[in-house]
Protein backbone atom coordinates (compact mmCIF):
# COMPACT_ATOMS: atom_id res chain seq x y z
CA UNK A 1 0.00 0.00 0.00
CA UNK A 2 1.35 3.41 -0.83
CA UNK A 3 1.43 6.54 1.27
CA UNK A 4 -1.73 7.54 3.11
CA UNK A 5 -3.77 10.00 1.12
CA UNK A 6 -5.37 12.53 3.43
CA UNK A 7 -8.46 14.42 2.35
CA UNK A 8 -7.84 18.12 2.04
CA UNK A 9 -9.40 20.31 4.68
CA UNK A 10 -12.24 22.27 3.09
CA UNK A 11 -11.56 25.96 2.60
CA UNK A 12 -13.54 28.39 4.74
CA UNK A 13 -14.39 30.85 1.99
CA UNK A 14 -17.61 32.76 2.45
CA UNK A 15 -18.24 31.54 6.01
CA UNK A 16 -14.87 32.87 7.21
CA UNK A 17 -15.43 36.29 5.68
CA UNK A 18 -18.96 36.45 7.07
CA UNK A 19 -17.69 35.60 10.56
CA UNK A 20 -14.99 38.26 10.36
CA UNK A 21 -17.48 40.85 9.12
CA UNK A 22 -19.92 40.06 11.94
CA UNK A 23 -17.14 40.21 14.52
CA UNK A 24 -16.12 43.61 13.18
CA UNK A 25 -19.70 44.87 13.31
CA UNK A 26 -20.09 43.67 16.90
CA UNK A 27 -16.89 45.43 17.99
CA UNK A 28 -18.02 48.64 16.28
CA UNK A 29 -21.42 48.36 17.99
CA UNK A 30 -19.85 47.78 21.39
CA UNK A 31 -17.65 50.81 20.85
CA UNK A 32 -20.55 53.02 19.82
CA UNK A 33 -22.86 52.06 22.70
CA UNK A 34 -19.96 52.96 24.98
CA UNK A 35 -19.32 49.47 26.37
CA UNK A 36 -15.65 50.05 27.17
CA UNK A 37 -13.58 47.20 28.66
CA UNK A 38 -13.37 49.00 32.03
CA UNK A 39 -17.13 49.24 32.13
CA UNK A 40 -17.58 45.59 31.18
CA UNK A 41 -15.03 44.47 33.78
CA UNK A 42 -16.92 46.31 36.48
CA UNK A 43 -20.14 44.49 35.51
CA UNK A 44 -19.95 41.32 37.64
CA UNK A 45 -19.23 43.37 40.76
CA UNK A 46 -22.19 45.68 40.02
CA UNK A 47 -24.52 42.76 39.39
CA UNK A 48 -23.58 41.02 42.62
CA UNK A 49 -24.04 44.25 44.57
CA UNK A 50 -27.51 44.91 43.14
CA UNK A 51 -28.58 41.27 43.55
CA UNK A 52 -27.56 41.53 47.22
CA UNK A 53 -30.30 44.14 47.74
CA UNK A 54 -32.98 41.73 46.54
CA UNK A 55 -32.85 39.49 49.58
CA UNK A 56 -34.95 39.03 51.70
CA UNK A 57 -38.05 39.30 49.51
CA UNK A 58 -41.12 41.07 50.91
CA UNK A 59 -43.51 38.12 51.00
CA UNK A 60 -46.40 40.09 52.46
CA UNK A 61 -46.33 42.35 49.42
CA UNK A 62 -45.97 39.29 47.23
CA UNK A 63 -49.14 37.71 48.59
CA UNK A 64 -51.36 40.77 48.76
CA UNK A 65 -50.28 42.62 45.61
CA UNK A 66 -47.98 40.66 43.31
CA UNK A 67 -49.96 37.41 43.22
CA UNK A 68 -53.22 39.06 42.06
CA UNK A 69 -51.24 40.94 39.40
CA UNK A 70 -49.65 37.73 38.14
CA UNK A 71 -53.09 36.11 38.01
CA UNK A 72 -54.32 39.10 36.03
CA UNK A 73 -51.45 38.60 33.59
CA UNK A 74 -52.51 34.98 33.15
CA UNK A 75 -56.09 36.10 32.47
CA UNK A 76 -54.90 38.68 29.92
CA UNK A 77 -52.81 36.05 28.17
CA UNK A 78 -55.74 33.61 28.07
CA UNK A 79 -58.24 36.09 26.64
CA UNK A 80 -55.64 37.36 24.18
CA UNK A 81 -54.89 33.84 23.01
CA UNK A 82 -58.60 33.11 22.55
CA UNK A 83 -59.08 36.26 20.46
CA UNK A 84 -56.02 35.40 18.41
CA UNK A 85 -57.07 31.78 17.92
CA UNK A 86 -60.62 32.66 16.89
CA UNK A 87 -59.54 35.25 14.32
CA UNK A 88 -56.52 33.38 13.00
CA UNK A 89 -58.21 30.15 11.96
CA UNK A 90 -59.89 31.63 8.89
CA UNK A 91 -56.76 33.61 7.96
CA UNK A 92 -54.70 30.42 8.27
CA UNK A 93 -57.01 28.62 5.83
CA UNK A 94 -57.10 31.54 3.39
CA UNK A 95 -53.32 31.88 3.61
CA UNK A 96 -52.53 28.28 2.75
CA UNK A 97 -50.93 28.14 -0.68
CA UNK A 98 -52.32 24.68 -1.36
CA UNK A 99 -55.95 25.71 -0.81
CA UNK A 100 -56.15 29.28 -2.09
CA UNK A 101 -53.17 29.87 -4.39
CA UNK A 102 -54.51 33.22 -5.65
CA UNK A 103 -54.92 35.12 -2.40
CA UNK A 104 -52.44 33.29 -0.18
CA UNK A 105 -49.62 35.77 -0.78
CA UNK A 106 -51.78 38.75 0.11
CA UNK A 107 -53.14 37.09 3.26
CA UNK A 108 -49.62 36.11 4.32
CA UNK A 109 -48.39 39.64 3.81
CA UNK A 110 -51.21 41.04 5.93
CA UNK A 111 -50.49 38.59 8.72
CA UNK A 112 -46.76 39.36 8.68
CA UNK A 113 -47.49 43.10 8.78
CA UNK A 114 -49.73 42.53 11.81
CA UNK A 115 -47.14 40.51 13.67
CA UNK A 116 -44.27 42.89 13.05
CA UNK A 117 -45.76 45.49 15.42
CA UNK A 118 -44.71 44.51 18.96
CA UNK A 119 -47.59 43.98 21.43
CA UNK A 120 -46.47 46.83 23.59
CA UNK A 121 -46.77 49.34 20.73
CA UNK A 122 -50.27 48.07 19.98
CA UNK A 123 -51.07 48.53 23.65
CA UNK A 124 -49.82 52.14 23.46
CA UNK A 125 -52.62 52.84 21.00
CA UNK A 126 -55.25 50.64 22.60
CA UNK A 127 -54.90 52.10 26.09
CA UNK A 128 -56.31 55.49 25.04
CA UNK A 129 -59.07 53.78 23.06
CA UNK A 130 -60.39 51.24 25.58
CA UNK A 131 -59.00 52.82 28.72
CA UNK A 132 -56.23 51.87 31.15
CA UNK A 133 -56.45 48.29 32.28
CA UNK A 134 -56.25 44.65 31.38
CA UNK A 135 -58.74 44.68 28.49
CA UNK A 136 -56.42 46.88 26.42
CA UNK A 137 -53.64 44.39 27.09
CA UNK A 138 -55.78 41.43 26.09
CA UNK A 139 -56.73 43.12 22.80
CA UNK A 140 -53.10 43.99 22.04
CA UNK A 141 -52.03 40.41 22.64
CA UNK A 142 -54.96 39.11 20.63
CA UNK A 143 -54.09 41.23 17.60
CA UNK A 144 -50.42 40.27 17.70
CA UNK A 145 -51.36 36.58 18.09
CA UNK A 146 -53.54 36.71 14.98
CA UNK A 147 -50.46 37.54 12.93
CA UNK A 148 -48.34 34.82 14.50
CA UNK A 149 -50.94 32.06 14.58
CA UNK A 150 -52.21 32.52 11.04
CA UNK A 151 -48.69 32.19 9.67
CA UNK A 152 -48.00 29.00 11.64
CA UNK A 153 -51.45 27.61 10.88
CA UNK A 154 -51.02 28.20 7.15
CA UNK A 155 -47.69 26.37 7.28
CA UNK A 156 -49.32 23.38 8.98
CA UNK A 157 -52.09 23.28 6.37
CA UNK A 158 -49.54 23.47 3.55
CA UNK A 159 -47.70 20.46 4.97
CA UNK A 160 -50.65 18.04 5.05
CA UNK A 161 -51.51 15.24 2.66
CA UNK A 162 -53.83 16.69 -0.01
CA UNK A 163 -55.09 13.26 -1.12
CA UNK A 164 -58.14 13.31 1.13
CA UNK A 165 -58.97 16.85 0.04
CA UNK A 166 -58.95 15.80 -3.60
CA UNK A 167 -60.98 12.71 -2.73
CA UNK A 168 -63.75 14.79 -1.15
CA UNK A 169 -63.82 17.14 -4.15
CA UNK A 170 -63.81 14.21 -6.57
CA UNK A 171 -66.76 12.69 -4.72
CA UNK A 172 -68.71 15.88 -5.39
CA UNK A 173 -68.08 17.75 -2.16
CA UNK A 174 -67.85 21.51 -2.23
CA UNK A 175 -64.62 23.27 -1.32
CA UNK A 176 -66.10 24.18 2.07
CA UNK A 177 -66.99 20.54 2.73
CA UNK A 178 -63.53 19.46 1.64
CA UNK A 179 -61.99 21.88 4.14
CA UNK A 180 -64.34 20.75 6.87
CA UNK A 181 -63.89 17.00 6.40
CA UNK A 182 -60.44 16.63 4.86
CA UNK A 183 -58.33 19.54 6.09
CA UNK A 184 -59.53 20.42 9.58
CA UNK A 185 -59.36 16.89 11.08
CA UNK A 186 -55.76 16.60 9.91
CA UNK A 187 -54.54 19.95 11.18
CA UNK A 188 -56.54 20.62 14.34
CA UNK A 189 -54.32 18.76 16.85
CA UNK A 190 -51.21 20.55 15.67
CA UNK A 191 -52.95 23.93 15.45
CA UNK A 192 -54.29 23.47 18.96
CA UNK A 193 -50.80 22.66 20.18
CA UNK A 194 -49.67 25.93 18.61
CA UNK A 195 -52.42 27.82 20.42
CA UNK A 196 -51.17 26.43 23.69
CA UNK A 197 -47.60 27.33 22.85
CA UNK A 198 -48.79 30.82 21.93
CA UNK A 199 -50.46 30.99 25.33
CA UNK A 200 -47.09 30.33 26.98
CA UNK A 201 -45.48 33.10 24.94
CA UNK A 202 -48.42 35.46 25.50
CA UNK A 203 -48.05 35.01 29.22
CA UNK A 204 -44.57 36.49 29.00
CA UNK A 205 -45.85 39.26 26.74
CA UNK A 206 -48.74 40.12 29.05
CA UNK A 207 -46.33 40.30 31.98
CA UNK A 208 -44.60 43.30 30.39
CA UNK A 209 -47.69 45.16 29.19
CA UNK A 210 -48.15 46.80 32.59
CA UNK A 211 -45.23 49.06 31.65
CA UNK A 212 -47.62 51.09 29.48
CA UNK A 213 -50.58 50.71 31.85
CA UNK A 214 -52.33 47.76 30.22
CA UNK A 215 -52.73 45.64 33.34
CA UNK A 216 -50.71 42.79 34.78
CA UNK A 217 -47.50 42.54 36.68
CA UNK A 218 -45.10 44.62 34.56
CA UNK A 219 -46.00 48.03 35.93
CA UNK A 220 -45.51 46.78 39.46
CA UNK A 221 -41.96 45.60 38.76
CA UNK A 222 -41.11 48.86 37.01
CA UNK A 223 -42.30 51.01 39.93
CA UNK A 224 -40.62 48.79 42.51
CA UNK A 225 -37.29 49.08 40.68
CA UNK A 226 -37.66 52.84 40.04
CA UNK A 227 -38.24 53.51 43.73
CA UNK A 228 -35.48 51.08 44.74
CA UNK A 229 -37.87 48.83 46.66
CA UNK A 230 -35.78 45.77 45.88
CA UNK A 231 -37.53 43.51 48.39
CA UNK A 232 -40.84 44.10 46.60
CA UNK A 233 -39.24 43.64 43.18
CA UNK A 234 -37.81 40.32 44.35
CA UNK A 235 -41.25 39.10 45.44
CA UNK A 236 -42.75 40.10 42.07
CA UNK A 237 -39.96 38.35 40.16
CA UNK A 238 -40.10 35.12 42.15
CA UNK A 239 -43.87 34.81 41.89
CA UNK A 240 -43.74 35.50 38.15
CA UNK A 241 -41.03 32.87 37.64
CA UNK A 242 -42.96 30.25 39.62
CA UNK A 243 -46.26 30.93 37.85
CA UNK A 244 -44.70 30.83 34.38
CA UNK A 245 -42.79 27.63 35.19
CA UNK A 246 -45.97 25.90 36.37
CA UNK A 247 -47.94 26.94 33.30
CA UNK A 248 -45.09 25.96 30.98
CA UNK A 249 -44.96 22.50 32.49
CA UNK A 250 -48.73 21.95 32.33
CA UNK A 251 -48.98 23.30 28.81
CA UNK A 252 -46.05 21.33 27.40
CA UNK A 253 -47.47 18.12 28.91
CA UNK A 254 -50.79 18.77 27.15
CA UNK A 255 -49.04 19.70 23.91
CA UNK A 256 -47.09 16.44 23.87
CA UNK A 257 -50.32 14.46 24.25
CA UNK A 258 -52.10 16.52 21.57
CA UNK A 259 -49.43 16.02 18.94
CA UNK A 260 -48.80 12.34 19.71
CA UNK A 261 -52.42 11.20 19.87
Amino acid at each position, binding site marked *: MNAVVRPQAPRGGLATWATLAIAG*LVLWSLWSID*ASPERLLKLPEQMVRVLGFFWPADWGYGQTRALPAVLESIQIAWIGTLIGAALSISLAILGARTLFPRISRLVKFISSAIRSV*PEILLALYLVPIVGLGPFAGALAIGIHSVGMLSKLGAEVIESIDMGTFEAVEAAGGSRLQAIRFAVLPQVLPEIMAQWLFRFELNLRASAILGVVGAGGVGGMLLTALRYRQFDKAAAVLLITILAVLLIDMASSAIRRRLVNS
Partner: protein
Amino acid sequence: MIAPVRPKPRYAFWGGITLALVAMTAWSAKGVGVDFIGMVCNIGGGKRLLVESFPPDFGFLPRLFKPFLETLQIALIGSVIGGILAIPVAVLAARPVSPNGLVWFLDRNFMNVMRTLPDLFWAMLFATAVGFGPLAGALALTVFTVAVISKLFSESIEAIDTNLPEAICAAGGNWIEMVRFGALPQVWPQYASYLMYAFELNVRSSMVLGLVGAGGLGMILESQRSNFEYERVSLIILVVLVAVLAIEQLSGAIRRRLA
Protein backbone atom coordinates in the same frame (compact mmCIF):
# COMPACT_ATOMS: atom_id res chain seq x y z
CA MET B 1 -69.49 -4.19 2.55
CA ILE B 2 -68.12 -3.97 6.03
CA ALA B 3 -68.16 -0.43 7.33
CA PRO B 4 -65.43 0.32 9.86
CA VAL B 5 -66.73 0.55 13.40
CA ARG B 6 -67.32 4.10 14.43
CA PRO B 7 -65.11 4.94 17.43
CA LYS B 8 -67.08 5.34 20.63
CA PRO B 9 -67.44 9.00 21.55
CA ARG B 10 -65.69 9.76 24.84
CA TYR B 11 -68.31 12.09 26.33
CA ALA B 12 -66.77 12.27 29.80
CA PHE B 13 -63.32 13.11 28.46
CA TRP B 14 -64.37 15.84 26.03
CA GLY B 15 -67.01 17.14 28.43
CA GLY B 16 -64.38 17.56 31.13
CA ILE B 17 -62.03 19.38 28.79
CA THR B 18 -64.78 21.70 27.55
CA LEU B 19 -65.85 22.44 31.09
CA ALA B 20 -62.28 23.28 32.11
CA LEU B 21 -61.81 25.57 29.11
CA VAL B 22 -65.12 27.35 29.67
CA ALA B 23 -64.34 27.82 33.37
CA MET B 24 -60.88 29.23 32.57
CA THR B 25 -62.39 31.57 30.01
CA ALA B 26 -65.15 32.78 32.33
CA TRP B 27 -62.64 33.42 35.12
CA SER B 28 -60.34 35.32 32.75
CA ALA B 29 -63.12 37.32 31.13
CA LYS B 30 -64.28 38.43 34.56
CA GLY B 31 -60.76 39.43 35.62
CA VAL B 32 -59.96 41.24 32.39
CA GLY B 33 -63.33 42.97 32.23
CA VAL B 34 -64.06 42.07 28.62
CA ASP B 35 -66.33 44.84 27.48
CA PHE B 36 -66.97 45.05 23.75
CA ILE B 37 -70.00 47.33 24.24
CA GLY B 38 -67.93 49.83 26.20
CA MET B 39 -65.30 49.65 23.51
CA VAL B 40 -67.78 50.52 20.77
CA CYS B 41 -69.16 53.41 22.85
CA ASN B 42 -65.62 54.64 23.41
CA ILE B 43 -64.59 54.44 19.79
CA GLY B 44 -64.94 58.25 19.49
CA GLY B 45 -61.92 58.74 21.73
CA GLY B 46 -60.01 56.34 19.56
CA LYS B 47 -61.05 58.21 16.43
CA ARG B 48 -59.63 61.45 17.77
CA LEU B 49 -56.38 59.70 18.56
CA LEU B 50 -56.15 58.22 15.09
CA VAL B 51 -56.95 61.57 13.45
CA GLU B 52 -54.24 63.23 15.52
CA SER B 53 -51.70 60.62 14.58
CA PHE B 54 -52.67 60.32 10.98
CA PRO B 55 -50.32 62.17 8.79
CA PRO B 56 -47.10 60.85 10.36
CA ASP B 57 -44.63 63.68 10.91
CA PHE B 58 -42.02 62.72 8.31
CA GLY B 59 -39.98 65.82 9.14
CA PHE B 60 -39.02 63.99 12.32
CA LEU B 61 -37.39 61.16 10.37
CA PRO B 62 -33.77 62.45 10.38
CA ARG B 63 -33.76 62.61 14.16
CA LEU B 64 -34.68 58.94 14.31
CA PHE B 65 -31.55 57.83 12.49
CA LYS B 66 -29.17 57.63 15.46
CA PRO B 67 -31.52 55.85 17.85
CA PHE B 68 -32.50 53.49 15.04
CA LEU B 69 -28.87 52.58 14.46
CA GLU B 70 -28.42 52.13 18.19
CA THR B 71 -31.38 49.75 18.21
CA LEU B 72 -29.80 47.58 15.50
CA GLN B 73 -26.47 47.63 17.33
CA ILE B 74 -28.12 46.46 20.55
CA ALA B 75 -29.85 43.65 18.67
CA LEU B 76 -26.61 42.62 16.97
CA ILE B 77 -24.57 42.55 20.18
CA GLY B 78 -27.28 40.63 21.98
CA SER B 79 -27.63 38.04 19.21
CA VAL B 80 -23.92 37.42 18.65
CA ILE B 81 -22.68 37.37 22.26
CA GLY B 82 -25.79 35.60 23.48
CA GLY B 83 -25.47 33.14 20.61
CA ILE B 84 -21.89 32.29 21.62
CA LEU B 85 -22.77 31.92 25.30
CA ALA B 86 -25.73 29.70 24.39
CA ILE B 87 -23.46 26.98 22.94
CA PRO B 88 -22.05 25.65 26.25
CA VAL B 89 -25.45 26.03 27.95
CA ALA B 90 -27.10 23.99 25.19
CA VAL B 91 -24.38 21.32 25.05
CA LEU B 92 -24.50 20.66 28.79
CA ALA B 93 -28.30 20.39 28.68
CA ALA B 94 -28.39 17.86 25.81
CA ARG B 95 -28.68 14.38 27.24
CA PRO B 96 -26.48 12.36 24.84
CA VAL B 97 -23.45 14.62 25.21
CA SER B 98 -23.90 16.02 28.72
CA PRO B 99 -21.03 14.82 30.94
CA ASN B 100 -23.19 13.60 33.84
CA GLY B 101 -26.70 13.56 35.20
CA LEU B 102 -26.20 16.25 37.80
CA VAL B 103 -24.82 18.83 35.33
CA TRP B 104 -27.64 17.96 32.92
CA PHE B 105 -30.29 18.42 35.60
CA LEU B 106 -28.90 21.71 36.91
CA ASP B 107 -28.35 23.21 33.48
CA ARG B 108 -31.78 22.14 32.25
CA ASN B 109 -33.50 23.85 35.18
CA PHE B 110 -31.29 26.90 34.82
CA MET B 111 -32.43 27.12 31.21
CA ASN B 112 -36.10 26.75 32.08
CA VAL B 113 -35.98 29.42 34.79
CA MET B 114 -34.13 31.82 32.51
CA ARG B 115 -36.78 31.29 29.86
CA THR B 116 -39.61 32.39 32.15
CA LEU B 117 -38.65 36.07 32.22
CA PRO B 118 -39.58 38.27 29.24
CA ASP B 119 -37.06 40.54 27.52
CA LEU B 120 -38.36 43.73 29.11
CA PHE B 121 -37.96 42.31 32.62
CA TRP B 122 -34.28 41.67 31.92
CA ALA B 123 -34.02 45.20 30.53
CA MET B 124 -35.52 46.65 33.74
CA LEU B 125 -33.14 44.60 35.87
CA PHE B 126 -30.05 45.58 33.90
CA ALA B 127 -31.14 49.21 33.72
CA THR B 128 -31.27 49.14 37.51
CA ALA B 129 -27.87 47.50 37.80
CA VAL B 130 -25.80 49.40 35.20
CA GLY B 131 -27.87 52.54 34.71
CA PHE B 132 -30.15 53.68 31.89
CA GLY B 133 -28.76 53.42 28.38
CA PRO B 134 -28.00 51.05 25.52
CA LEU B 135 -25.58 48.89 27.53
CA ALA B 136 -28.49 47.71 29.69
CA GLY B 137 -30.42 46.83 26.54
CA ALA B 138 -27.52 44.92 25.04
CA LEU B 139 -27.04 42.92 28.25
CA ALA B 140 -30.77 42.18 28.46
CA LEU B 141 -30.89 40.91 24.90
CA THR B 142 -27.74 38.84 25.48
CA VAL B 143 -29.42 36.98 28.34
CA PHE B 144 -32.68 36.73 26.40
CA THR B 145 -30.86 35.26 23.38
CA VAL B 146 -29.14 32.64 25.55
CA ALA B 147 -32.58 31.69 26.87
CA VAL B 148 -34.13 31.41 23.40
CA ILE B 149 -31.30 29.68 21.53
CA SER B 150 -30.08 27.26 24.18
CA LYS B 151 -33.44 25.54 24.44
CA LEU B 152 -33.86 25.07 20.68
CA PHE B 153 -30.20 24.18 20.16
CA SER B 154 -30.10 21.58 22.92
CA GLU B 155 -33.16 19.91 21.40
CA SER B 156 -31.31 19.73 18.07
CA ILE B 157 -28.25 18.25 19.76
CA GLU B 158 -30.44 15.61 21.38
CA ALA B 159 -31.59 14.52 17.93
CA ILE B 160 -28.10 13.94 16.44
CA ASP B 161 -26.67 10.66 15.24
CA THR B 162 -24.77 9.47 18.34
CA ASN B 163 -22.51 7.06 16.44
CA LEU B 164 -20.12 9.86 15.59
CA PRO B 165 -19.44 11.06 19.14
CA GLU B 166 -19.17 7.41 20.23
CA ALA B 167 -16.59 6.74 17.54
CA ILE B 168 -14.50 9.67 18.74
CA CYS B 169 -14.65 8.45 22.34
CA ALA B 170 -13.71 4.94 21.18
CA ALA B 171 -10.73 6.35 19.29
CA GLY B 172 -9.53 7.94 22.54
CA GLY B 173 -10.87 11.46 22.17
CA ASN B 174 -11.72 13.35 25.34
CA TRP B 175 -15.04 15.05 26.08
CA ILE B 176 -14.18 18.36 24.43
CA GLU B 177 -13.00 16.64 21.26
CA MET B 178 -16.13 14.51 21.28
CA VAL B 179 -18.35 17.59 21.40
CA ARG B 180 -16.26 19.68 19.05
CA PHE B 181 -15.76 17.08 16.31
CA GLY B 182 -18.55 14.57 16.93
CA ALA B 183 -21.63 16.50 17.98
CA LEU B 184 -21.45 20.14 16.94
CA PRO B 185 -20.62 19.73 13.21
CA GLN B 186 -23.91 17.89 12.81
CA VAL B 187 -25.96 20.82 14.11
CA TRP B 188 -24.18 23.95 12.83
CA PRO B 189 -26.79 24.56 10.09
CA GLN B 190 -29.60 24.50 12.64
CA TYR B 191 -27.53 26.74 14.92
CA ALA B 192 -27.14 29.33 12.18
CA SER B 193 -30.86 29.31 11.56
CA TYR B 194 -31.65 29.73 15.28
CA LEU B 195 -29.21 32.63 15.36
CA MET B 196 -31.11 34.34 12.56
CA TYR B 197 -34.38 33.68 14.35
CA ALA B 198 -32.99 35.20 17.55
CA PHE B 199 -31.78 38.23 15.61
CA GLU B 200 -35.31 38.73 14.26
CA LEU B 201 -36.75 38.57 17.78
CA ASN B 202 -34.05 40.87 19.08
CA VAL B 203 -34.64 43.55 16.45
CA ARG B 204 -38.32 43.52 17.34
CA SER B 205 -37.72 43.78 21.07
CA SER B 206 -34.82 46.24 20.88
CA MET B 207 -37.31 48.70 19.37
CA VAL B 208 -39.30 48.73 22.61
CA LEU B 209 -36.55 48.27 25.21
CA GLY B 210 -36.29 52.03 25.48
CA LEU B 211 -39.72 52.17 27.13
CA VAL B 212 -37.98 51.04 30.33
CA GLY B 213 -34.89 53.13 29.70
CA ALA B 214 -32.65 50.58 27.99
CA GLY B 215 -31.64 52.61 24.94
CA GLY B 216 -32.63 52.69 21.29
CA LEU B 217 -35.71 53.86 19.47
CA GLY B 218 -38.04 53.16 22.41
CA MET B 219 -36.58 56.01 24.43
CA ILE B 220 -37.60 58.56 21.78
CA LEU B 221 -40.97 56.86 21.54
CA GLU B 222 -41.48 57.23 25.28
CA SER B 223 -40.60 60.93 25.30
CA GLN B 224 -42.83 61.74 22.29
CA ARG B 225 -45.68 59.77 23.79
CA SER B 226 -45.53 61.60 27.08
CA ASN B 227 -45.75 64.88 25.13
CA PHE B 228 -48.79 63.53 23.21
CA GLU B 229 -46.97 64.05 19.89
CA TYR B 230 -48.98 61.34 18.23
CA GLU B 231 -47.90 62.20 14.64
CA ARG B 232 -44.38 61.34 15.75
CA VAL B 233 -45.46 58.21 17.62
CA SER B 234 -47.15 56.93 14.49
CA LEU B 235 -44.02 57.67 12.46
CA ILE B 236 -41.91 55.65 14.91
CA ILE B 237 -44.35 52.75 14.75
CA LEU B 238 -44.22 52.90 10.96
CA VAL B 239 -40.41 52.78 11.06
CA VAL B 240 -40.51 49.77 13.41
CA LEU B 241 -42.98 48.01 11.14
CA VAL B 242 -40.89 48.53 8.01
CA ALA B 243 -37.63 47.58 9.73
CA VAL B 244 -39.03 44.40 11.25
CA LEU B 245 -40.63 43.35 7.96
CA ALA B 246 -37.36 43.95 6.10
CA ILE B 247 -35.26 42.01 8.60
CA GLU B 248 -37.77 39.18 8.56
CA GLN B 249 -37.63 38.89 4.76
CA LEU B 250 -33.82 39.01 4.80
CA SER B 251 -33.43 36.40 7.49
CA GLY B 252 -36.10 34.24 5.88
CA ALA B 253 -34.11 34.27 2.63
CA ILE B 254 -30.87 33.40 4.43
CA ARG B 255 -32.54 30.61 6.40
CA ARG B 256 -34.03 29.11 3.24
CA ARG B 257 -30.54 28.95 1.74
CA LEU B 258 -29.16 27.33 4.90
CA ALA B 259 -31.81 24.64 5.00
